[in-house]
C-alpha cells in the first residue's frame, strides 16, 4: 500500500512542475513591469532599473523559471503582493482554513444529498419521483452559483430576514454559502450516482443476490452501491476542484474572508501576484485531493490495487480513461 502511495506521489511531481510552469507563463504574459508597479508611477528610471536588478527581472527566462520553481518548492514563495509588499503565502495560509471549511462543508452536504437522491432516483426509475429529481438536478447544474447566492440573499436575508447575508461569525453564516455552493455539486453527484447505479443493478450478480432472497435494501446497499461508487468518487474528487474555484465567487458574494475573497479583492486592486499565487496554491491543493481520491479507490476496489501491482502503467491508463468518460459527462 505504501508503495502504491509513494508511486502515485512520484507521478504527481511532473504534473505539479507543469502547473507551476503554466502559472509562471501566465505571470510572464501579464503586461506591465512588476518593478515599476511595485515602486509606483512616480519612481525614477534609475530606481526602477535598480529594482529590476534586485528582483532578478533582467535574467534569462529559463533561469527565472528555475528560480521560481525553487522559490515555490523550497521556500513556499508564491509571489509578493504589489500592494502590501509582503509575501502572499502568509495571507494564503491564514485564509485557507476558511475556504477549506466552506469547500469541505459543501462537499459533505452535496455527497449526502447527491448520493441519497441518486439512489432513490435509480431504484425508482421512470416514476414521478425520478423525473422530478432528474429535472431539479438539471436545474442545479444550470443555475449560476453567484446569482443563486445573490437571490438567496434577497429572499432569505432581505425579505424573510431568516439568515445573515454576509460575513462569517457563527454557524448560521455558513448556511446560505454552503447551500449555494453545494447545489450544483449535489446535482452532479446525484446524476452520476443515478446513472452508475442504473448500470450496476442490471448486472448478473445483482440478480443472483436477489434470487438468493436478499432484501432489496441489502441488494442495493451492499451489492449495488459499493460497485457503483467508484465513478461517483471520481466525480466527488473533481467537484472538490470545482468547489475551490466556485468558492472564489461565493466568498465574494457573501463577503466571507477566505482565500477566494482575498484573490477577488486583489483583482480589483490589480495586485496580480496575489491572484496567481492563490490559483497556484489552490491547484496544488486540488492535486493532493485527487491523489487522496485515487488512494481511496484502492480501498473501495481491491481490483485496482492488485492490478496496479501487476502493471502499474495499465492501471494508471484505466484511471485516466475513467476520468475521461466522466469529464465528458461533466461539462462544467
Amino acid at each position, binding site marked *: 500500500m505504501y508503495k502504491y502511495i509513494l508511486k502515485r506521489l512520484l507521478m504527481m511531481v511532473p504534473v505539479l512542475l507543469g502547473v507551476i510552469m503554466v502559472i509562471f507563463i501566465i505571470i510572464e504574459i501579464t503586461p506591465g513591469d512588476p518593478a515599476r508597479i511595485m515602486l509606483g508611477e512616480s519612481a525614477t528610471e534609475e530606481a526602477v532599473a535598480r529594482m529590476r536588478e534586485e528582483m532578478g527581472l533582467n535574467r534569462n527566462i529559463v533561469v527565472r523559471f528555475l528560480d521560481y520553481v525553487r522559490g515555490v518548492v523550497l521556500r513556499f514563495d508564491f509571489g509578493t503582493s504589489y500592494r502590501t509588499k509582503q509575501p502572499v503565502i502568509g495571507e494564503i495560509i491564514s485564509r485557507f482554513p476558511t475556504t477549506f471549511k466552506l469547500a469541505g462543508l459543501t462537499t459533505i452536504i452535496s455527497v449526502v444529498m447527491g448520493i441519497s437522491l441518486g439512489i432513490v432516483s435509480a431504484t425508482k426509475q421512470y416514476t414521478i419521483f425520478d423525473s422530478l429529481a432528474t429535472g431539479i438536478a438539471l436545474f442545479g447544474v444550470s443555475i449560476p452559483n453567484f446569482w443563486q447566492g445573490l437571490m438567496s440573499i434577497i429572499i432569505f436575508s432581505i425579505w424573510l430576514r431568516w439568515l445573515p447575508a454576509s460575513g462569517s461569525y457563527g454557524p448560521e453564516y455558513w448556511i446560505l454559502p454552503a447551500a449555494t455552493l453545494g447545489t450544483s455539486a449535489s446535482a452532479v453527484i446525484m446524476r452520476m450516482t443515478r446513472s452508475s447505479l442504473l448500470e450496476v443493478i442490471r448486472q448478473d450478480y445483482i440478480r443472483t443476490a436477489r434470487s438468493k432472497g436478499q432484501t432489496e435494501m441489502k441488494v442495493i446497499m451492499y451489492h449495488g452501491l459499493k460497485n457503483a461508487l467508484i465513478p461517483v468518487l471520481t466525480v466527488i474528487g473533481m467537484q472538490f476542484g470545482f468547489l*475551490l474555484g466556485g468558492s472564489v465567487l461565493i466568498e465574494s458574494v457573501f463577503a466571507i474572508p477566505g482565500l477566494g475573497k482575498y484573490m477577488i479583492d486583489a483583482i480589483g486592486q490589480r495586485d496580480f501576484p496575489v491572484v496567481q499565487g492563490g490559483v497556484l496554491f489552490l491547484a496544488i491543493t486540488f492535486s493532493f485531493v485527487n491523489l487522496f481520491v485515487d488512494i481511496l479507490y484502492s480501498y473501495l476496489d481491491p481490483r485496482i490495487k492488485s492490478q496496479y501491482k501487476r502493471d502499474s502503467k495499465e492501471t494508471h491508463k484505466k484511471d485516466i480513461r475513467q476520468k475521461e468518460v466522466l469529464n465528458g459527462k461533466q461539462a462544467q
Partner: protein
Amino acid sequence: MVSKHNKKKRGPWREVWRRLKKNKMAMGGLTVMILLALIAIFAEYVAPYGFDDQNLANRFIGPSREYLFGTDNLGRDILSRIIYGSRVSLTVGFIAVGIALVIGGALGAVAAFYGGKVDNVIMRLVDIILAIPGMLLAISLAAALGPGLTNMMIAIGVGSIPGYARIVRSSVMTVKEQEYVEAARSVGASDLRIIMNHIIPNSLAPVIVQSTLGVAGAILSASALSFLGLGIKPPNPEWGGMLAGARQFIRDYWHMTTFPGLMIMITIYALNLLGDGLRDALDPRLRS
C-alpha cells in the same frame, strides 16, 4: 460512409434527428436557443431601447408596462440591456468552444492517430492543464490578459482544451480499430482520406454532445468572469456584468439582480436539455 449517406439526406444523421425530434425537452431547449440567437442577431429591432440609453429621471423603476424588467441605477432599460447582452454571451460561448474544439480536437486526434511518444507528450500536457480547476485557470488568464471580449474567449477556451483533447482521442482510438477503417486501408485509401471520410464522421457523436454542454459551461464562465470584473467593460452589457452592477443595490431593488441571472439560467438550462437530448439521440444504447 456516413458522409456519403449524409449527402443523400438519409442514413444515421437523419435517424438521429428523428430520435431528437421525439424528445420534447430537447426540442424545447433547441427552440429556446434558436429564439435567443434570433434575438441576439436582431437586437436593434427587438430591444425597446438602446443598451446605453440613460434616462436619469427614470432610475430604479420596478418592472412596469413601459419598462418590462425595470430600469437600473442610470435609468437604463434592463430588458434592452439583456437583449444586447445575449450577443456577448452567445459569441463568447460559441467562439470559446470553437477555439477549444479546434485545438483540443486536433491534439486529441493526432495523439490517438500516431500513438506512442506523440500521444504520451500531448496527454501529459493535457494532464497538467486539467490539474488546474477550470474556473481558476480562467480567472488567472483573464487577470493576466486584461478585460475584453477576445481575452475572455481565450481565457475560457484554453481551459476547455483538455476536455476536447481527451474526448476526441478516446473516440478516435475506438474508431481507429474498427474493421471499416482496416477495409479502407486495404483498398489503398490515404491517411487523409481515412481521417476525413471515416474517422471524423464516426467519432463525432461524443464531440457534439460535449460541445453543446461546453457552450453552456462557457457562457456560465463568461458571466462569472464579468461578475468578477474580468470580462466585458461597462457600459457594454453582459449578463454577469449587469449582476455585478446590481450588487450594491441588492437591498432595495431586487429586479436589477433577478432578470439578468434568470436569463443566464434559462440559456444554460436550454443548452443542457439539448445536450442531454443529443446524447440520448446519438447513442441509443445509453438510453437504458
